[in-house]
């Protein structure tokens, strides 16, 4: 049994924030869940995927966040409790349906998880998705702990049904990926079959209906604001002339700092969990009860500005501070030490931070080698990139490389350096069109298979129709590798219990109107290079589907063992370093041994036996057993 299905009430488990959200949804009787995977939200969908296999829950990995949200909305308006999870930038993709779903609302509880990523541990930006609550007019909850993640998820379904609106639940990487103790409560049986009761005046947003529905949304927003003022997730604690307002993970750093600095009887704290609509009356009472206020919130000054609006509206001049040169930054994740130091400074408390060891104090500076992540040994993307680079070198061609989001973005690093432009999912295909049109130069764009399904197809149709001229390489490793090997519509090697039709990328590409299409296994360098040569020689848009499974995924699903072992021959004793300078497999590197007999050496523990390196250098050969 999946551990999150435990029926033991009162049991305490050490759960990831994301797992706590899953349990909360199950305790709320979730019947339908969708997602597109994206760090830090992925474990939510991954747990639903496994739970759906042993319960009545319906779950799907949708092709993108817009699809996921609309699919979930369809279930929610049919009376099924629904959850849709995504990372923060995923909500950009789903923003279009979200804005108008807010107008029509839902009939059963619908909770949308947005997992933000302050500090950009694995994202292209650190946008603050609390602004989506304001933009859409929807309620937002923000947990401060794993326990609260579960409690708030359950409450979010109730709030959603009371208001007939979807509710946003926002996490950050830290909340999603830390583990805290969570107490299990009763699981509620899922309702998985609903009915769609027609009401076109509500659900069909032609302008005449939309005008009516916008007013409904604004009115519901005021009800939500009253709920926020009464919410058990919005609390005032402590006593004193100083005030702190905080939310989300910043609350934890504040709570520890107040204890550490002995401020419990000097500072009063307003902790906000139901953050949108802003609980103005609660805030007004708080502002009136203190002499000055420090707002501690990661990223944008949203609570700070909301407090200032309340103060101004009521003619209060209570100092309210948050972001500023001497205070908090709009950038990056916070941490307990910086929050403690800033609170001490603001409230004039003596505080000496612990003296951290500074390695720059070494008498003799020690140069530390960098340790950037790298494409794995045997990764077929490396072979594709190598083939492209070699053909360009052989033909003396220069090219621009728009890239996309996935493991293959690591191609940015030396020695491959095959990423020149990237802004979001799908931007490889479309920016390639613009760059090639504007420069008249060769453009070779790279996109992964899951990303192609997510948002590459419309760009490709556009490129064919508008007669753009570039090469698109679809790096098809048969899985959504970067986020943990989730399946996508094109999977051929499927996880156990996966009985869904596979949709051919090649057929889609041809149906988009691309005439020059080749499908090659990039592990065969000659074939891959020939495909690149043909594409370069063409004066039309061409697509190469470089198809070879992710070796980690293949090993996980099929138990594929190492294919062959290779070794470097004794003739590798010159100062030639071409293999590491152009290919850069982590299993093949300069021999560090003092008495090295060969310049290079293969690490047999890392090598998976893909055999690409023997096509690059004759000095590498199969190992005799």
């Amino acid at each position, binding site marked *: 049994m999946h551990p999150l299905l435990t029926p033991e009430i009162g049991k305490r488990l*050490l759960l990831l924030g994301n797992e706590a959200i899953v349990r909360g949804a199950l305790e709320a009787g979730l019947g339908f869940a969708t997602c597109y995977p994206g*760090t*830090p939200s*992925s474990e939510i969908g991954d747990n639903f995927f496994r739970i759906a296999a042993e319960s009545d829950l319906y779950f799907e990995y949708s092709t993108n966040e817009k699809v996921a949200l609309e699919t979930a909305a369809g279930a929610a308006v049919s009376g099924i409790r629904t959850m849709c999870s995504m990372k923060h930038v995923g909500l950009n993709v789903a923003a279009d349906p979200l804005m108008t779903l807010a107008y029509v609302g839902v009939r059963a509880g619908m909770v949308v998880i947005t997992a933000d990523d302050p500090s950009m*541990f*694995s994202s292209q930006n650190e946008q603050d998705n609390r602004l989506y609550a304001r933009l859409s007019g929807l309620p937002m909850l923000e947990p*401060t*702990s794993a326990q609260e993640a579960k409690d708030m998820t359950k409450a979010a379904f109730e709030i959603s049904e009371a208001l007939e609106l979807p509710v946003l639940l926002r996490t950050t*990487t*830290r909340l999603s*990926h*830390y*583990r*805290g*103790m969570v107490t299990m409560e009763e699981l509620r049986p899922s309702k998985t079959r609903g009915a769609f009761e027609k009401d076109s005046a509500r659900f069909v947003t032609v302008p005449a209906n939309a005008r009516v529905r916008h007013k409904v949304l604004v009115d519901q927003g005021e009800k939500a604001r009253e709920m926020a003022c009464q919410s058990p997730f919005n609390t005032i604690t402590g006593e004193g002339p100083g005030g702190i307002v905080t939310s989300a*993970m910043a*609350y*934890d*750093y504040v*709570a*520890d700092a107040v*204890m550490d600095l002995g401020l419990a009887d000097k500072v009063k704290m307003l902790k906000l969990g139901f953050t949108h609509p802003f609980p103005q009356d609660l805030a007004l009472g708080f502002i009136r009860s203190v002499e000055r206020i420090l707002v501690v919130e990661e990223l944008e000054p949203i609570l700070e500005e909301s407090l200032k609006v309340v103060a101004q509206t009521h003619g209060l001049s209570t100092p309210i501070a948050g972001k500023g040169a001497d205070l908090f930054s709009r950038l990056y994740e916070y*941490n*307990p*030490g*910086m929050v*403690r130091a800033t609170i001490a400074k603001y409230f004039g408390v003596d505080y000496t*931070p*612990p*003296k*951290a*060891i*500074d*390695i720059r104090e*070494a008498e*003799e500076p*020690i*140069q*530390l*080698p*960098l*340790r*950037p*992540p*790298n*494409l*794995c040994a045997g990764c077929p993307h490396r072979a594709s990139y190598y083939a492209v680079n070699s053909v360009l070198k052989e033909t003396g061609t220069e090219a621009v490389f728009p890239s996309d989001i996935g*493991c293959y973005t*690591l191609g940015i690093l*030396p*020695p491959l350096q095959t990423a020149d432009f990237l802004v979001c999912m799908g931007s490889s295909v479309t920016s390639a069109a613009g760059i090639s049109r504007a420069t008249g130069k060769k453009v070779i764009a790279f996109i992964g298979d899951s990303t192609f399904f997510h948002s590459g197809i419309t760009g490709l149709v556009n490129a064919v129709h508008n007669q753009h001229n570039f090469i698109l390489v679809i790096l098809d490793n048969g899985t959504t590798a970067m986020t943990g090997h989730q399946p996508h519509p094109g999977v051929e090697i499927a996880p156990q219990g996966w009985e869904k039709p596979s949709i051919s990328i090649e057929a889609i590409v041809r149906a988009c109107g691309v005439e020059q299409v080749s499908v090659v296994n990039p592990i065969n360098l000659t074939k891959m290079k020939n495909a690149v040569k043909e594409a370069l020689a063409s004066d039309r848009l061409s697509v190469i589907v470089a198809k070879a499974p992710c070796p*980690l995924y293949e090993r996980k699903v099929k138990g594929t063992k190492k294919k062959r072992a290779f070794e470097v021959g004794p003739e590798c004793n010159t100062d030639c*370093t071409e293999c*590491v*300078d152009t290919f*850069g497999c*982590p299993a093949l*590197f*300069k021999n*560090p041994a003092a008495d090295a007999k060969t310049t290079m050496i293969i690490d047999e523990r890392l090598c998976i036996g893909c055999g690409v390196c023997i096509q690059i250098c004759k000095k590498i050969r199969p190992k005799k057993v």
Partner: protein
Amino acid sequence: MSDHRICFIGVGGQGTLLATMVLAEAAISAGHNVLASEVHGMAQRGGVVESSVMMGNIKSPIISDGEADVLLGFEPVETYRAMGKCSHDSIVVSNTVPVMPFSVAIGKGAYPDIDKLFSFIQPRVKTLITLDARALAEEAGAALSANVVMVGALAGSGALPIPKEAFEETIRTKTKAQFAEVNLKAFQLGFGAL
């Protein structure tokens, strides 16, 4: 009950997250309130992996500079690079076996003298314990158990109020059954390595 902040630092593939879980679960079974934190994403791609466990009355799941009570370093350069988490009150337990960064492997950087790394750390922290976790893991029967050797060394250091039995019980019940025996042996060898 006193508070403890334990920082884990290693390289993708070294099993630092399993080690984090073993400590967290052992601390829970010993009656402590526990938080743990992990950064996911690049774990399988050779990057640096950092995680942490908090014991006691702490709400924040991350460790600020100078605030680690214990640093468990799985790789010498990464132990050194993470020294900013430590102060002169910290206990540092580090593996001595390097994992070559790819930049070094392709000749774009040199791996520093490991003795120099540790001789910088030694006088600046409360205690430095170093051990060859790979050799002990191989002795236990599987090089992959080096992470459990490290947990054993942490337990053996006496830095944390968790009885040895709590770790052993966790290893027995929470790590994969087919590796439990090797892991228990690895833990024992780490425990006695000091």
